[in-house]
């Protein structure tokens, strides 16, 4: 066999190996529970170099869409409950890191965030959270629980969270979940991933 022939053979073998590795990794990803390790390539951007940071728990839909998954992300450290809450919510409102799916409609921004002395937080969101919502009780429960849990899990001072839309008290996001009163943390749709780092 000519050197060129050997080269082709070697290249072929390498290609096959890569392909096999890809297939098994793919299978593993399809069958195993979602990888707990945090993929570095997407989701809310980590704070820039040199900025003090803190790890917060944010909530996204699992890749099968059946549950809410708590994911640990690095966000900017802020002084005080209210500034820290704003950082948490800004990160929560951005897209989800793969393979998770964001449960907050795209384009939703945080208009205001404040906490009362009674431990009730008010999260004022832009109208996209309602106008861009796909509807359905289940999708709506995921959105509401993700926002409420992101605040209560990370800020122990907050007991209950009321969602406002465009500065106003709201009935619901899309016709289902009652938003007229502050809501408590709800873990009924949460599926813990085994090894969150």
């Amino acid at each position, binding site marked *: 066999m000519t050197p060129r022939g050997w080269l082709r053979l070697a290249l072929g073998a390498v290609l096959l190996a890569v392909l096999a590795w890809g297939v098994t990794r793919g299978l593993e990803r399809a069958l*195993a529970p979602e990888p707990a390790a945090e993929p570095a390539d997407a989701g809310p951007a980590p704070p820039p170099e040199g900025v003090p940071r803190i790890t917060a728990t944010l909530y996204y*839909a699992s890749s099968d869409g059946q549950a809410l998954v708590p994911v640990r992300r690095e966000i900017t450290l802020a002084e005080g409950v209210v500034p820290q809450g704003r950082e948490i919510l800004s990160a929560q409102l951005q897209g989800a890191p793969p393979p998770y799916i964001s449960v907050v409609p795209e384009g939703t921004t945080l208009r205001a965030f404040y906490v009362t002395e009674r431990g009730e937080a008010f999260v004022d969101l832009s109208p996209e959270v309602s106008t861009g919502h*796909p509807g*359905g009780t289940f999708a709506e429960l995921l959105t509401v629980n993700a926002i409420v849990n992101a605040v209560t899990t990370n800020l122990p001072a907050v007991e209950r969270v009321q969602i406002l839309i465009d500065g106003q008290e709201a009935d*619901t996001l899309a016709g289902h979940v009652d938003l007229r009163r502050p809501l408590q943390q709800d873990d009924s749709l949460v599926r813990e991933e085994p090894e969150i780092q």
Partner: protein
Amino acid sequence: MRATATTVIILLLVLSQPQAQGTPPGTPLTLVTREGRRPVPTTVLSGQELIALDDLASLFQVSVREDTLAGGLTITYRGRTIVASTDQPMASVAGRVVALPAPAVRAGRRWLVPLEFLPRALGPIYDQRIDLRRPARLLVVGDLRVPRVTARIDAAGPPTRATIEIAPAAPVALAVDGGRVIVRIDADALDLALPTGGGGLIEQVRAGDQPNSVTVVLSGRAGPARAAATEADAVARVAIEVPSIAPPTAAAPATPLPPPTSEPASPLPVLTASRPVLQTIVIDPGHGGEDVGARGAGGTEEKQITLDVARRLRTIIEARLGVRVVLTRDEDRAISLDERAAVANNGKADLFLSLHVNASVAPTVAGVEVFHLRLDREGEDARRAAETQAVSLPVLGGATRTIDVVRWDLAQARHVKASAVLAGILEEELQEQAAMGPRPLQEAPLRVLTGANMPAALVEMGYITNRAQENLLRSDTYQASLAQAIYDAILRFREYLEEGRTP
């Protein structure tokens, strides 16, 4: 390492053929046709009742072919085709996808399909109507008269009172024969839903000796029974009254005394004086008007599906139960969530049912889910207040009247227990007819339920964000089976309410 193990498991799964070892069900299935009745063999395998395709081939003149290339089974009837999947719980029926509770499974050399295959897959392409009456174990083929027959003991007595209802109504012949009342119904077969036990002087209500009769067996202490049939709202009702043996008179001292009874000596209040537990049902088709609700990739809108199913449900409830049904909207218009509850509260409804279609951020999520209200802290306080703080107000004439104190916007608080029962029954009946979602029964703070001052639940009838479910939600067959399941649940919930009233 994990990758290798996964690959091995995959290989094992691929290589192992599903080998079914089923057990026969408790009661065989009966096929009812114009020609007569015959038993149909079925088998139960991991909770699914299955029927063999070669039995179907001979019963329904269909041809069955195994398509190894496509990984499915092709069933042909007069040029129309069903492709049943062997790995997915679904079949393609003349090009439309229908959901089944399980895929086709192989047992030795035979292929088995779930019983639902008959109404859902074969039904749409068959020349005659195929109607699976699961609780009564009947498979009705053709346009036959198979009314649903329900019986209940209204009062233990004595006198014991019972009612048998036949819906849709059919002519009835009554015969009182010693210790039995025989009800003969002019029908091809009966879809029986009879109570398991008796009550008072009625020992049992059971299927009669003829396929179209029902026998009421009386106790030895029963006197001469009276029975009368009436018809109203397309439902025939047979009212039966059984007195106890007349007490011995002084002129007949030899007659032994009747055995002592535990029944109260004074007769119970006359049944007709009390209000039926279910008089008005309010059905709430979700969304409407500008609020289209969730939308599918194919353009289907939630507001239309909810209205379609609500109308079907109204038709069958009114025809079979003779109960008033009110829809919160009967056209395509927007209506607020408070108005929906207000329709039910002002109409003094006994039951509120909101119909919706679900959506998910992932297109794979599918199935039916039932919701009832979960109270938050304020709701719990309102519930306790309703239990303990009834206020007695003086009224004209010196008497007092008790008024419940409950916030109008938390009216559901005092019905949470009954609503949880209602939702549980809905879930059980719906899973007989449809594939359920990942969380079939849930408790959630749902806005439309909070103000309803009666037992209330919300049914999400499927995920419109799933392509197959979107098609299913549009189909007549699926809508009809949802309506049937909800109707069956309402019947059972009525029994629950009746049990609660007569302790």
